[in-house]
């Protein structure tokens, strides 16, 4: 229960940060990406504020060693730069550039009850599910070939 409350509070604060920063407005995000137009550098200030505070908090978390409400700190373990990382980032970049919404602001904007936002979030969920399904199939194929190889 304390973990759930903490997660809810962090989501609330994260959403408030997105709203205050203006990053829930797609045209403000597109204004940052539009470096050949009337460039709006706000997103750079948002990133600076977020990265500095996150960095300080993470340093504190590392010093403490364990989180307050869970058994361990779950840091990402991968360091490799592989094709799926860059291909996925590029695909995400296309979608982000087309509409100006990334997952966080898209979810916060669900509160606008606007149909275009709902369509975007549903399509995003379908994309995520589709990718998982495709990956499960691919790993089953690999397992099947490996099994037939050992059989033969």
């Amino acid at each position, binding site marked *: 229960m304390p973990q759930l409350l903490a997660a*809810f509070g962090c989501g609330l604060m994260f959403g408030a940060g997105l709203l205050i920063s203006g990053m829930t407005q797609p045209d403000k995000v597109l204004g940052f990406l539009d470096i050949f137009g009337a460039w709006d550098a706000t997103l750079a*200030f948002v990133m600076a504020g977020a990265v500095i505070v996150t960095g300080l908090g993470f340093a504190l978390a590392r010093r403490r060693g364990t989180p307050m409400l869970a058994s361990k700190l779950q840091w990402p373990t991968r360091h490799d730069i592989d094709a799926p990382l860059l291909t996925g980032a590029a695909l995400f970049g296309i979608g982000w550039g087309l509409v100006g919404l990334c997952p966080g602001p898209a979810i916060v904007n669900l509160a606008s009850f606007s149909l275009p936002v709902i369509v975007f979030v549903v399509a995003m969920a379908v994309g995520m599910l589709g*990718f998982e399904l495709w990956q499960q199939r691919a790993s089953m194929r690999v397992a099947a070939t490996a099994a037939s190889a050992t059989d033969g």
Partner: protein
Amino acid sequence: MHHLTPLSGFLGGALIGLASALLMLLTGRIAGISGIFGGLLPLRATDRGWRLAFIVGLIVAPLLAALGGASLPMPTMPTSYVVIAIAGLLVGVGTRMASGCTSGHGVCGTARLSTRSISATITFMIVAIAVVALTRHLGGS
């Protein structure tokens, strides 16, 4: 036409950072929205409780602000539902394939000085800038 809002941008960003820092300090989790949301979907569902709580928090934020007198967000979206659906699909597939988005790679990964996350961030920034250049300055409209 939009204007630079550096102060609210920096303060809002700092609040995003505080939320990300607290999620790690309290629950030991990375505040990556695509990962948190993706983990709620079938096929991949693991410990749904905290994920759902975080996502509900995101949606409640503008509703609480509206109770306090602020207006609900009114995002400007493209008029074409085809464009919106394609963009949503690409964001979904891309963020799962790259295991992260603007929050997980862009904020948390950059704060950890992870070269993997910084590479992803530079990639999606450059591609998104190119897409906006194409649609706004070369494709007409």
